[in-house]
């Protein structure tokens, strides 16, 4: 899906570049009607990019991080009292938004929210991601002053998940969808 969208975007860029290049060549022989074509093509490309953004948001897919985001200064609110776990969460979030290939096939698939612990939304609004933490981590995590158990899982994916709603609202679940904590990435 991501590859298809990326391919479509690349194709749009190539097509626009071709039209733009062609219009430049013909403009040299002064053809005002082709100016219009180039203009329409530019508008179409802009619209296409906008639609791409809308499609991603409506599908619950994350958008790229803003260019001014400073990864070195990032932290999470509410406070997670485990710097190494925070590091793992920040890396996963950055990887998701940067479109980095994630290790599990389940990463990025729809989270159906059958228990309705999260606010009910249209199908496909929530996406799930596996949070991998080294096994020597303690069996509890304190988030915003509340202690959550992180029980052992028999799956290679472990029990911790991130869920992203509408491409923008980020939840951390330390206990495999029993608890959800909305978190925000902030510059410290």
């Amino acid at each position, binding site marked *: 899906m991501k590859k298809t969208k990326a391919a479509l975007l690349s194709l749009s860029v190539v097509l626009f570049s071709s039209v733009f290049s062609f219009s430049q060549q013909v403009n040299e022989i002064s053809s005002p009607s082709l100016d219009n074509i180039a203009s329409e093509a530019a508008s179409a490309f802009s619209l296409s990019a906008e639609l791409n953004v809308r499609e991603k948001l409506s599908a619950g897919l994350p958008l790229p991080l803003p260019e001014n985001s400073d990864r070195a200064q990032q932290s999470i609110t509410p406070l997670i009292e485990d710097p190494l776990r925070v590091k793992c969460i920040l890396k996963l979030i950055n990887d998701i938004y940067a479109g980095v290939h994630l290790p599990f096939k*389940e990463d990025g698939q729809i*989270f*159906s929210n059958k*228990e309705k612990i999260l606010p009910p939304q249209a199908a496909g609004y929530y996406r799930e991601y596996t949070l991998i933490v080294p096994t020597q981590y303690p069996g509890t995590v304190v988030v915003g002053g509340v202690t959550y158990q992180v029980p052992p899982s028999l*799956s290679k994916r472990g029990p911790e998940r991130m869920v992203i709603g509408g491409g923008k609202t980020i939840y951390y679940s330390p206990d495999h969808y029993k608890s959800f904590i909305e978190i925000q990435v902030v510059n410290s």
Partner: protein
Amino acid sequence: MEPPAFALTQEAVVKLDGPVAKAGEVEKIFTDLGFFFCRVDCAGLGGKGEFITAVGTGFGFSGVDAHNWDSLEDSLGSLPCFRKAAGYAAVLSNFSGLPPGELALFEEVVRDAAAALWRNYSLRLKVVLLKPEKSSRK
């Protein structure tokens, strides 16, 4: 001998009754196909929580892997992360004590998990619901 059609279709939830609906026969069908197979006897279970735990135990999940519908769906949809097999199947019996709404939700969980399992791994998940047998004793 060819396995019966219900074992080969994409339909994740199969409801059986009649002579073929014997857990042992169903088990042989799926183990012959190389599937991981488990039996879940739901007799005496006290509701949704115990039902989910029983199904999770059958598939070899820990408590955190299957404690509510969302965790069960996630674990069923990523069964290869627990154990390798050519497919995964379970037969459930004596489930009539489960409220109808919860049973319908369980079937939805199985179908969604089966779709994810097929999409990600091209492997099938089948859950056979054995309808209550009438006493054959004379």
